């Protein structure tokens, strides 16, 4: 579905992403793992269209994909940023309605999408409440469904579970698993290895701007020469034990 080939991006003289290569298939969840500063968010930003002057190639279903230049390409993606990117002075329903409108959904479609996503997020009873009054977990759920209003085929999630309790995290996982079962492709960045192990079909490990390994957790362990190791051990072996963001 999404093919990333030799993606590179620099902030001035600092190379944030260098020749990154990976692909995401329909109905698959690809975990993008890496230490802080590895280039995960920059990679996501290039794909979502927040950054434009990158090098390399992006293609979606075989066609060239230029999200920064073509708003219609951005419409093919769902994006869930790390920040709680919803408006706290608007109700849950108004937030979802806004993003549905920006995707050009008609009134009827919008209403259906809002109802469906509120149900999915478990917020149907709080639809009229301001997002600012929600708990951290509720805000996270609202943040997630706000990126799904147009029912995209590919959703990019940048650490969507930061700061939530186990119950809310579990609810978020169930939402994502449901999306996967519906054939939606997910590109998921996280620092939590157990999340990646539970949710992701394949994992791409980034280090210092490059994708250093791609495969299922067991494939990665074998490639790392430690078939019995868990994902965290493989990750530390591939990325090193020294601090990366000093």
């Amino acid at each position: 579905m999404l093919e990333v080939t030799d993606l590179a991006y620099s902030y001035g003289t600092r190379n944030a992403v260098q020749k990154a290569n990976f692909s995401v298939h329909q109905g698959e969840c690809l975990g993008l793992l890496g230490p802080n500063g590895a280039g995960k968010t920059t990679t996501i930003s290039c794909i979502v269209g927040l950054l434009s002057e990158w090098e390399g190639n992006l293609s979606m279903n075989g066609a060239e994909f230029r999200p920064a230049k073509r708003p219609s390409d951005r419409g093919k993606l769902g994006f869930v940023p790390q920040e709680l990117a919803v408006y706290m002075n608007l109700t849950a329903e108004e937030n979802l309605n806004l993003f549905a409108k920006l995707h050009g959904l008609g009134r009827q479609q919008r209403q259906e999408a809002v109802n469906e996503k509120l149900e999915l997020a478990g917020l149907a009873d709080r639809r009229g409440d301001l997002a600012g009054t929600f708990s951290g977990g509720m805000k996270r759920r609202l943040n997630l469904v706000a990126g799904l209003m147009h029912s995209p085929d590919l959703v990019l999630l940048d650490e969507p579970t930061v700061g939530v309790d186990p119950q809310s995290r579990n609810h978020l996982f169930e939402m994502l698993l449901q999306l996967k079962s519906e054939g939606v492709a997910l590109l998921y960045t996280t620092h939590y290895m157990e999340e990646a192990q539970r949710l992701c079909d394949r994992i791409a490990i980034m280090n210092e701007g490059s994708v250093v390994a791609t495969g299922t957790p067991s494939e990665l362990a074998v490639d790392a020469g430690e078939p019995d190791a868990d994902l965290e051990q493989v990750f530390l072996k591939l990325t090193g034990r020294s601090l990366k963001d000093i």
Partner: protein
Amino acid sequence: MNTISAAWVLAQKDLRSFLRDKTALVLSILVPIALVSVFGWIMAYAFGGSGGMPKVTLHVADFSQSKQSQQFVDSLKNDASLKVRLVKLLKDGDSVNQDAVQSQLEKLIRDGDANHVLILPSDMEQQIAEDRIPQFNLLRDPGRAMEEQVIQIALIQTSAQVFGGFFFTDAMQRMLTKQGMDTQTIGLIRTWMTDIGSTMDTFYENSNSGSDVPANHDDQGEDQPDIRESETKSENEPDQVAEQPTTNSHDAGESMLGLMEELMPIETKDISPPNRGKQVTYQQAQSVAGMTVMMLLFALTSCGSVLLTEREEGTLKRLFSQPISWNAILLGKFLFVLIIGLGQMAILFTYGEWMFRVGLFRDPITLIVLSLSWVVAGAAFGMFLAAISRSSKQAESLASLLILMMAALGGCWFPLQMMNLPTLLDTVCRSTMTYWAMTGFQNMLWNQLSWHDTKILQALGWQWCWAAVLTLGAIVFFRRNYCRG
């Protein structure tokens, strides 16, 4: 989704969000109203009745064109409180067309090009030769109490200098006659006053000896009245004074020019646009316009910083990932700021009109055109600040600094024409967008000009130029600072 629709959806979102924050909403209305009230009262009542200000412009029309009138003008020019401007007189061949000039002078005041015009009579030389203080005429824009006081003092001072001790004896005679004293007693007092007058002459001759302006005694020195002459005059002059026209529109006791009218043979005529309320003072009109112009800038920059808040909170990132053009995001913010600005302007003007009755709604089209232009310029300023700032804190500091500076330079706090500015500073003031907003509103409020008048069109033109430049700057910096890559 097309750019306009997307921008409108985003503007609606911001409006809804803004209206939800009740505290911010109430503050955004109450703070400007409180400031308009405070400044309005201070300007109208505190400063309105006292002097102590820099140079006041006095236009002088010299119908006499004589040596005496020239001396009088020179002496006026030497007065530190006045900026004297001689009016060029229209002539029919060699002679001055007095009717045409009178209309020309009245037009000067009506159009706001002058506030006070002093007319030196054509027979000034002859009146002085007859030992009379010349009969002056003063055309004035009523409601300029502060300037009038300065002019009053300067005219009395100049008259005393130019006409010497004779001025005091004449003034005394004038006052006593007005208070009903009989002519014989006045004659007696005048005799004593003549001696005092001689002493005063000597004093002024000495005090003027270092000045460029000679005391005007070259043709009076010898005919300083002796007792016999004074007696003769004192018998004749009371009638003469009584015959002086008394067309003053104000009761001398209540008028700000009361003292001058008591002391000098001056006839005043008020000239103001027909629709301006009698109770309105220049200071009130100035402060209502000034505070509105300044407070609107604060409101608009604070709304413009929504862009920065969105960036800091992460919602802007989500907006950038939507299938809308990035220009729609900027345009959406601009629309939001514009709507808030127009709403705030409507509230402030309604309040200002209700409170001070300055005649804001006399010409709704001009009011709408001026308000819209200022809101557009202000919105562009707000967006520009948001686009160049790295954080909302930075934007707030920058906004406070720039707005307060522009407000002071543009004349929002105090009328610039009251200030004696050096050329460079005057040019700086004229280059601010607040100056042109004030010029527009003042011409509408005080001079009652309409939107199609050249002066208002010029003010509008400058505001739109500013709006265009700032909008362009906002787009450039928005692309550079927000749409990275």
